């Protein structure tokens, strides 16, 4: 009897494990319904609300959010009937919160920020409001002023669903003082018969990395962490080797010769020049390694440069010794956040008033001067921004990076493709799979995922 009772209890416990899985959710609005033009299908800009409206905005808790929060009182002063309430949280908590808001009868969030792998997925599911007519009705907005590749991420099937918030394109950050060191220059010249310069090809990058390792400094603080991170770093290597995830016709080519070469060199760099035990490293560990003076280079977000060069910042006495370059090969991985308006918010007009104000040329300039990552060409070429921000050289390099950059993956399954490819890449770096096995598996998985409706 006792045994039966115990088994019954255990059954209930075991079933409880499954019960914490999927939960019922209300039906979503069919895509066709949500794709109807926005409420403000007029040529006049939306009028301010006659009664007080509070807009809830989901944000990632990062320095760019702090800047937006500091700017917002200016908007509220100009628009006394619109109040802005931010809900800032870590990245990991955002995706499911946003989805839950989409599926609710009325949105929890009136304004959301969308990471680039989510854009096609959310837009094609009918979760986002098309913004074309709002953009057309907003005088002086100049949508084409956003850098092309950044702007294009918000465009799905010819309609605009998001306007750029900030970029996180990748660049190469180096310790310039090490490259300028006459002693190292002489040694490098003697060993390789050429001057020590910031590498522009993968072969040179590996060579320079190994050279610094011999001098007692790790050549590259890499980010081979499983999933997004390793793919984000390695895809720069893939571009440099002439490869890509898919060709122009949409065929998966991540297992071709170029990819093989890129992954072999990446692993060689990890094994011969990167800090040991860094298989799980993401961008924060790499940043720490650079700031501690442990490593000579890293491929990371372009706006890490001001962080490293900030007097009294994490790099201490090394502040000012770091410089930003384009990644080897020139073409970089592009990451962006976009502002978007959910299909189920009743406050679309007010939401656009805030988003268009914040991303207008004038306010965007203020945001960038305050340290925000730029997205507009006019802002990056503005002399006042150069003077009050991080200098002409930095913005010119960022503009060059952004002009020749592409996101990791596009399409409604980008999130899954990125994570799955990143798992196989990490397996190859860990030695669990050979380069050929990992790339073949990554290609097969990408084909399988892409074939889904």
């Amino acid at each position: 009897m006792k045994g039966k009772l115990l088994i019954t209890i255990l059954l209930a416990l075991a079933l409880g494990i499954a019960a914490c899985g999927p939960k019922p959710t209300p039906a979503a609005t069919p895509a066709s319904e949500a794709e109807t033009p926005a409420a403000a299908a007029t040529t006049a800009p939306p009028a301010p609300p006659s009664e007080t409206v509070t807009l809830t905005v989901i944000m990632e808790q990062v320095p760019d959010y702090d800047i937006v929060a500091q700017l917002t009182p200016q908007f509220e002063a100009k628009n006394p009937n619109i109040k802005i309430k931010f809900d800032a949280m870590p990245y990991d908590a955002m995706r499911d919160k946003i989805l839950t808001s989409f599926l609710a009868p009325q949105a929890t969030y009136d304004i959301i920020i969308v990471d680039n792998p989510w854009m096609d997925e959310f837009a094609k599911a009918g979760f986002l409001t098309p913004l074309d007519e709002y953009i057309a009705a907003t005088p002086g907005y100049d949508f084409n002023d956003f850098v092309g590749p950044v702007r294009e991420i918000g465009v799905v099937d010819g309609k605009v669903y998001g306007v750029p918030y900030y970029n996180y394109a990748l660049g190469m950050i180096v310790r310039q003082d090490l490259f300028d060191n006459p002693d190292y220059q002489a040694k490098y010249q003697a060993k390789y018969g050429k001057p020590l310069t910031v590498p522009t090809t993968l072969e040179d990058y590996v060579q320079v990395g190994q050279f610094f390792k011999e001098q007692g400094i790790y050549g590259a603080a890499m980010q081979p962490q499983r999933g997004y991170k390793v793919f984000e770093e390695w895809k720069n290597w893939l571009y440099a080797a002439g490869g890509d995830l898919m060709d122009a016709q949409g065929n998966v080519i991540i297992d071709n010769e170029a990819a093989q070469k890129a992954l072999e060199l990446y692993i060689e760099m990890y094994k011969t020049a990167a800090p040991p035990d860094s298989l799980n490293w993401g961008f924060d560990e790499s940043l720490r390694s650079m700031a501690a003076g442990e490593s000579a280079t890293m491929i990371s977000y372009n706006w890490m440069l001001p962080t490293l060069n900030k007097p009294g910042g994490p790099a201490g006495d090394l502040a000012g010794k770091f410089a930003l370059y384009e990644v080897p090969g020139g073409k970089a991985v592009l990451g962006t956040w976009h502002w978007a308006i959910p299909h189920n918010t009743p406050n679309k007009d007010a939401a656009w008033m805030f988003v268009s104000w914040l991303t207008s040329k004038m306010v965007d300039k203020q945001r960038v001067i305050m340290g925000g990552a730029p997205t507009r060409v006019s802002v990056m070429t503005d002399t006042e921004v150069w003077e009050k921000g991080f200098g002409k050289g930095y913005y010119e390099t960022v503009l060059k990076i952004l002009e020749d950059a592409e996101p990791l993956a596009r399409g409604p399954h980008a999130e899954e493709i990125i994570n799955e490819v990143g798992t196989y890449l990490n397996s190859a770096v860990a030695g669990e799979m050979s380069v050929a096995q990992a790339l073949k598996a990554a290609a097969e998985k990408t084909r399988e995922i892409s074939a889904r409706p």
Partner: protein
Amino acid sequence: MQPLLHLKYRLLAPLVLVLGAVIGYPLAFSLWVSLHNYTLTAIGQAKLVGAANYLGLLANPSYWRAIGNTVTFVLVAVGLELILGFGLALLLHHRATPLRHLFRSLLLTPMFITPIAVGLMFRFLLNSQLGIIPQALKALGIHVDWFGSRLALFSLALIDVWQWTPFMLLLLLAGLEALPTEPFEAARVDGASGWNMVRYVTLPLMRPVILAAVVIRMLDAFKVYEYVYAITRGGPGESTETIQYHIYRVGFLYFRMGEAAAMAYTLIIVVLILVILLFYVLRRSAT
């Protein structure tokens, strides 16, 4: 006039209704979801696919790897917890152990910390750049890559051991303190040594408590998610991808709820098989 239902059923009714609402409905719904191609980004287009989600798992290497990792994790973690917990319980039960009440309180503290905090704590303690443990080992000339592909799963199991051995200790100590004294006195009179007392008297008497403790811990360990989420995210490769984390990835990152629900149901079967097997082995050894 006779009431419609007997009193015992009327008394049971509120509990049955509550359980039906909070367990029965989600379970039935997740079973329904597992039989459909239910995706959160296209709920309106969910179609009945029958057993396709279940059959798809057969050819899904990531799923099998996650099951294998979870079983390994459970066996290593619960096995070590049982050995350590039993040893500590014997020590704390022994009257000659100095400061045993103080140790009892101290040893119980890890299980009162929320697992996600334990995960974050060990992420930093074992971090190769900042961690005090790698630094201390380095001073002794020992180098361990705690989260490399060979050791990562074992490291996570050790963290579980750190947190949950106190639970095992608590149950086993309660069991030891509830044992009758006569068999021990008889064994002592017969001249049994310390080890023989444990082997032939304590262990047989403790079997029901050990069984309960192991089963409860195993069921709990099967739910391992927080350490994976906080520390390794399933990596390197898939070497620490446990089934709960895999279900989370498929369901909440990729929004493919049908497949995730099918995995959750297969997990129930695996758990039940293990529980039945454990009962069978222990009952057979008892006879």
